[in-house]
């Protein structure tokens, strides 16, 4: 009798360490997709808001067009199940991200989580995803270590640092520039990009010098560093701030006469949100070049076209990358469940590694166990755009890079 009680207790404890304990197997009702994203500073809340909208669009597609997960278009012998999106704010900080992930998994019973935007937050949470065995997809966090550390449960559908470094070094080379200054925040994202850029310059033996200055992300006054750059007369300044620091670098570089006289390239696509970008910067924002992961000249997949049309209908604005990639991540999780005919997160992880999944662009995303940073990594294409006049929207901005998509040339400030 005593033995059977002990055996039962052991069984309960084992179940507690797997999905059954958390409740994925037993939970009736909709399947929960977790969205862990910054919705308040010091994170980038505007990005988080866009990611949430993309996830809501994914929920809409899965429930209406697909008829739910395991719906009529699959061969699964499981009842069609609707999905719902549960959102947690990570504020872009590691501690809130870890707490939010735990809450999504243990309280909301999320079968998969996506929406990460800040690399430091995602890197801190990745070990927990492995521990709980729940797939965690990086929607817009790009530090190399996220995939470079080979976490079992972590995937990424966003360009990795070397992709971004290759793009801007290609652009800088094409412009015939040699002297590069970089102001990067002291996060995994900023430090990772500085390292990736240095490594690539050395590997390819490029005729370029890089002065990378790492600044404290909480600093509001970057004037001294920018004055130093101004004295050094670089050919281009790389702005590697995220959220508030990205804006402060542009404003303060403009204040001291560094930008736009010296070109500046922003490391991610925050200028694609015109209501925030132009409102905050006004004419100061003209001439900025920036990396974007989407431009209407890129061909969308059928899923991407559906998302773009529905987004415009539902939110009365043009879909941007954050919307589309978050939508794509929701779709990838739903397809992985369909292909695995399972809601068990560990089976979803296994399926993500071996399947091919339709997303918003390209001919399908895959997440093989690649080498180095290309472990569980799928990268969408990226382009470099430039705003040439005030209040321009990103779809009107000329594409400067890559050459295959080029629609304009760099316009120096007059």
């Amino acid at each position, binding site marked *: 009798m005593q033995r059977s009680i002990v055996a039962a207790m052991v069984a309960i404890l084992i179940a507690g360490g797997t999905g059954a304990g958390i409740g994925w197997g037993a939970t009736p009702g909709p399947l929960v997709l977790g969205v862990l994203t910054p919705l308040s*500073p010091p994170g980038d809340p505007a990005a988080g808001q866009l990611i949430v909208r993309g996830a809501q669009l994914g929920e809409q597609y899965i429930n209406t067009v697909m008829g739910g997960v395991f719906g009529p278009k699959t061969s699964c012998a499981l009842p069609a199940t609707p999905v719902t999106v549960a959102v947690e704010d990570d504020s872009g900080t590691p501690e809130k991200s870890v707490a939010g992930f735990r809450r999504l998994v243990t309280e909301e019973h999320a079968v998969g989580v996506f929406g990460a935007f800040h690399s430091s937050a995602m890197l801190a949470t990745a070990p927990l995803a492995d521990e709980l065995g729940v797939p965690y997809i990086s929607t817009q966090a790009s530090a190399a270590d996220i995939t470079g550390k080979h976490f079992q449960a972590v995937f990424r559908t966003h360009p990795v640092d070397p992709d971004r470094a290759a793009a801007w070094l290609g652009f800088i080379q094409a412009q015939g520039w040699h002297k590069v200054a970089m102001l990067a925040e002291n996060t995994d994202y900023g430090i990772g990009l500085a390292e990736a850029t240095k490594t690539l310059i050395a590997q390819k033996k490029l005729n370029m010098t890089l002065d990378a200055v790492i600044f*404290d992300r909480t600093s509001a*006054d970057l004037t*001294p560093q920018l004055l*130093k750059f101004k004295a050094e007369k670089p050919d281009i300044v790389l702005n590697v701030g995220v959220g508030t620091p990205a804006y402060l670098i542009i404003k*303060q570089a403009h204040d001291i*006469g560094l930008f736009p006289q010296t070109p500046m390239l922003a490391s991610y696509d925050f200028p694609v949100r015109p209501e925030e970008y132009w409102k905050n910067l006004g004419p100061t924002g003209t001439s900025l070049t920036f990396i974007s992961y989407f431009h209407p000249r890129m061909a969308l997949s059928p899923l991407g076209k559906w998302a773009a049309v529905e987004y415009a209908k539902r939110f009365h604005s043009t879909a941007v990358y954050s919307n589309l990639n978050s939508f794509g991540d929701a779709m990838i999780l739903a397809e992985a469940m369909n292909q695995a005919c399972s809601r068990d997160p560990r089976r979803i992880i296994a399926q993500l590694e071996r399947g091919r999944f339709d997303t918003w662009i390209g001919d399908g995303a895959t997440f093989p166990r690649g080498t180095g940073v290309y472990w569980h990594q799928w990268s969408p294409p990226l382009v470099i755009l430039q705003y040439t006049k005030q209040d321009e929207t990103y779809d009107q901005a000329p594409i400067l890079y890559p050459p295959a998509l080029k629609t304009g040339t760099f316009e120096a400030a007059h």
Partner: protein
Amino acid sequence: MDATLLTQYVLAGLVIGAIYCLMAVGITFIYSVMKMINWAMGEFYMIGGYAQYLLLTDWLGPARWYLALPLAILGVGVLGMVVERVLLQPMFAGRLERLDEYATIMTISLTVLFRNLAVVVFGPYQFSPRDYAPPVQLGPLPINGSRFVAFLGAVVLLGLFQWVVRRTWFGLALRSVAQNRVGALCAGISLPRIDMLAFGIGVALAGAAGALLAPVFLVYPQSGALSTVKGFEIIVIGGLGSLPGSVVGGLLLGLVESLGSVLISPSFRDVYGFGLLLVILAFRPTGLWGERAREA
């Protein structure tokens, strides 16, 4: 290092230091008069920033910035007086024994309340009003017009504040309350009224810093957090309760941060200020202008 570049760094540090002073003077002034620390100073800074943003973008327009600034400062001052009258004055009415604890809990609660109110009203986004003044050349330093206005505004406000405190009857009343509350009461000074005005003026200085810096830095719900830290750092450097100490402390902090971040590394900008604080405390435990006090 090039002398021009060094001068630029020094000037940049002094400009930002002068603006830091406003915050520190507000904190130390409230402490001197009311003998309490207002932990919500950063939130009054944030409210000043939002007020300036609304006035410049929606209500008055950038051309009337000279009206927006006093209105924002006045608005924050009035809000401060209301907060003092409703939430803080009961602790001076003789019903509470642990005044410090009450003030700490109340002002920390205000921090949470104001931040969350800002999120509810404005959302978690960052805002910045457009620059309202043309760029200025301050010696070798090219400086943004709004930042120059902020610098001048800080100097003028600090001068005005010093004049009121040193040269007027009201200032005399404030100083007497700061020296001895019971004595001031015996001399016929209304302590509740002085407390309310002192709190209003103190938070108005923080609001002024927020309003002056709104076009320079961004405005968002947590924008006051850093300025609170800087403010407390400065008053410890300068000496708690000392107005000249706050001014010198603010300028020193601005200089140390500016020079440290270019001569050593900008990754540790905040560390330099705390390093200065530790060095000063090691040699002068009461701060540069602080005095030893004994409480009965």
